[in-house]
């Protein structure tokens, strides 16, 4: 006997097809089914009460502490935070102890995730052994073990010849390469955006060119090798035309942005607030507006959370000595919806950047509501008001950059493979 679920009275939004209409969503055996072909009599029915039903989010950049630093975050705690934020799949970066640079470790992650995580955990394998930027990893074996893509996490590979080899070899297996952009010699001891604010605080600045120079190199090598290349995250206005130009030449090039660089700027650093110490750094307001415009016009494909749990020990430090990173899984969607409520980017575009675009880049069947796709979806109250409280977040760490933020829009229910894995207290229980 098949198990089926019917979400009724919903506003169905499917960014992949552009569908936005009143309707129902049928799920049979964990997959989206065609409701017009008939509804099983024994289907469990849920009244969505007019709320949005959309694909679950796919977050392309998440750090955890498992293995090695479980006190910061485990796959289980990250997945709870993800579920509460409407994220049904996330790519976990290889920056763990040990580094995920070996097939056996991918296997470990896959098993741990199956045993402990409620959402789909997609492991990224390191591009270079130990994230040292010296030798490429065993791409073929890592892919066989279940790596979804190659990424060097927080590390940015400096050697152009090595990158060329990595891109060429990844193209051999048609695997996407995701690369973080830092020209290390130009960043130097820089800890925030270069400019008046950094100078006033007596902090060393990071110029935009520390991003645009490696971006330009990567794009040229991507065109040369034909690799599926994803610029992990851009932050500077000057990066946008470089990406736009390269995308004209190849559809295998894509680009991401952190929710932080869409919603915050260098002023938020205020008086050495280390929860706003991020990589890439928060840039100027002009840069932030350029990121929003690039998202709206499609130069930026993906919004991710850059979820990076850090403990108090490494954050309660003088700014230059504190670790980079902020939480993001639970606030990603609601913070992104600010752009919609402000009228800067339309809802379909914002959702597409967190659902169908990452799915296309990673080659996933999810991220859409077409029949046959995995039934990973959310019920979203677009106008639900809430205030971010650090104490209520489900992550093991507390380093949110949105403490006290007033947000509008909240996930009421989250489903993975047709099973409800998160229910907001204000969601109505299933109708009889």
């Amino acid at each position, binding site marked *: 006997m098949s198990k089926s679920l019917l979400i009724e009275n919903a506003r169905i939004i499917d960014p992949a097809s552009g569908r936005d209409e009143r309707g129902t969503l049928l799920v049979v055996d964990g997959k989206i089914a065609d409701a017009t072909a008939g509804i099983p009599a024994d289907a469990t029915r849920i009244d969505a009460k007019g709320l949005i039903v959309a694909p679950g989010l796919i977050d392309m950049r998440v750090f955890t502490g498992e293995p090695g630093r479980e006190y910061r975050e485990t796959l289980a705690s990250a997945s709870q935070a993800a579920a509460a934020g409407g994220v049904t799949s996330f790519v976990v970066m290889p920056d763990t102890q040990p580094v995920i640079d070996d097939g056996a470790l991918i296997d470990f992650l896959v098993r741990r995730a199956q045993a402990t995580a409620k959402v789909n955990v997609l492991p990224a394998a390191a591009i270079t052994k130990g994230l040292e930027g010296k030798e490429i990893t065993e791409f073929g074996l890592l892919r066989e073990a279940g790596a979804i893509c190659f990424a060097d996490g927080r590390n940015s590979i400096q050697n152009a010849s090595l990158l060329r080899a990595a891109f060429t070899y990844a193209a051999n297996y048609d695997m996407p390469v995701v690369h973080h952009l830092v020209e290390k010699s130009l960043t130097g001891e820089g800890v925030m955006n*270069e400019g008046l604010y950094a100078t006033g605080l*007596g902090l060393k600045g990071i110029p935009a060119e520390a991003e645009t120079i490696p971006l330009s190199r990567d794009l040229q090598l991507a065109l040369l090798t034909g690799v599926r290349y994803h610029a992990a995250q851009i932050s500077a206005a000057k990066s946008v035309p470089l990406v736009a130009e390269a995308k004209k030449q190849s559809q295998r090039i894509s680009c991401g942005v952190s929710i932080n660089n869409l919603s915050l700027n260098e002023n938020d650093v205020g*008086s050495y607030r280390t929860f706003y110490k991020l990589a890439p750094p928060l840039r100027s307001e002009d840069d932030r507006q350029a990121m929003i415009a690039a998202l709206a016009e499609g130069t930026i494909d993906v919004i991710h959370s850059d979820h990076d749990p850090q403990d108090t020990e490494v954050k*309660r*430090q*003088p700014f230059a000595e504190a670790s980079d990173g902020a939480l993001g899984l639970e606030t990603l969607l609601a913070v992104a919806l600010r752009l919609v409520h402000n009228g800067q980017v339309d809802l379909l575009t914002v959702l597409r950047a967190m659902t169908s675009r990452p799915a296309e880049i990673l080659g996933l069947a999810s991220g859409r509501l077409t029949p046959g796709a995995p039934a990973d979806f959310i019920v979203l109250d677009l106008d639900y008001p809430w205030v971010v409280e650090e104490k209520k977040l489900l992550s093991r760490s507390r380093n949110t950059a949105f403490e006290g933020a007033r947000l509008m829009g909240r996930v009421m229910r989250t489903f993975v493979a047709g099973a409800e894995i998160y229910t907001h207290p204000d969601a109505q229980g299933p109708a009889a």
Partner: protein
Amino acid sequence: MAHKSPPETSEQQPGRSGSSPVFSKRHLLGIADLNQYEIVDLLDRAERMIPVSRQERKTLPTLSGKTQINLFFEPSTRTQGSFEIAGKRLGALVVNMSVRTSSVTKGETLIDTASTLNAMQPDVLVVRHSAAGAVELLSQKVGCSVINAGDGAHEHPTQALLDALTIRQHKGRISGLTVAICGDIANSRVARSNLLLLNALNVRTRVVAPKTLLPKGIEDMAAEVFTDMHEGLKDADVVMMLRLQHERFAGRMIPSVREYYHFYGLDAEKLAVARPDAIVMHPGPMNRGVEIDPSIADGPRSVITDQVEMGVAVRMAVLDALLPAGGTK
């Protein structure tokens, strides 16, 4: 509406301090936290402290019974000594704690150090640290007053106050003067604090340095920016030289000491374009033959030793202002 300048000096009160209005701040973390009236008030208080150090019995009882801890994460001879003498002349129990950076990186965080010291019930902590913002962070974790004795390239407020007091002693005023700050602006907390203070007192501020030592945004922090010493020093009333940490820069930010000295070292020829009565200052310690010619450093227009004397008066005034007399904590 016309901008109203603050009084250059408030009414001089004879005798002891303590007659000034209550200084409402708990900490002195930076000049950025002070308004022009508070700056002038501190300078007035410091001026009244000058005679204390010149008399035979160099003491005031105002901080009797109080404990001052000097916590220096970065080595410093003159600033630490100056704070120690200032505290002792006011009757405080002064304890010097030199924390070697290595022991801090061995595991004890700044916060740990702060709470350990806080448990010893000091009344004031005087803190120097190599990281910008570290002193402010520490101040959030202790129950006593905190004085910033220099945090990275951020601020060094007592240095700016003693520089201003030295200028006032020599020029009789501060407002309306032209002050040229020359050298390693990019890495200097002294430059930042001085710019903030001098701008607040309507000084025409100039910075003079090669472009590699001028940080981004400096044009919004100084009235005029020069890369040529002759242009930058023209008609200046005060020439303030900064220490060049040449061992850190050689071959990068500046090609060589020789080249730097040739173009940016203060010598008689360059000083000649400043006003005839211009004074020369330096926060010390000096690199003679790098940023300043020995004959200028030790010459008649140098007020460098006066700065050291004013340093004690300023630090006494700041301690006195933050820790009002009477009663224990």
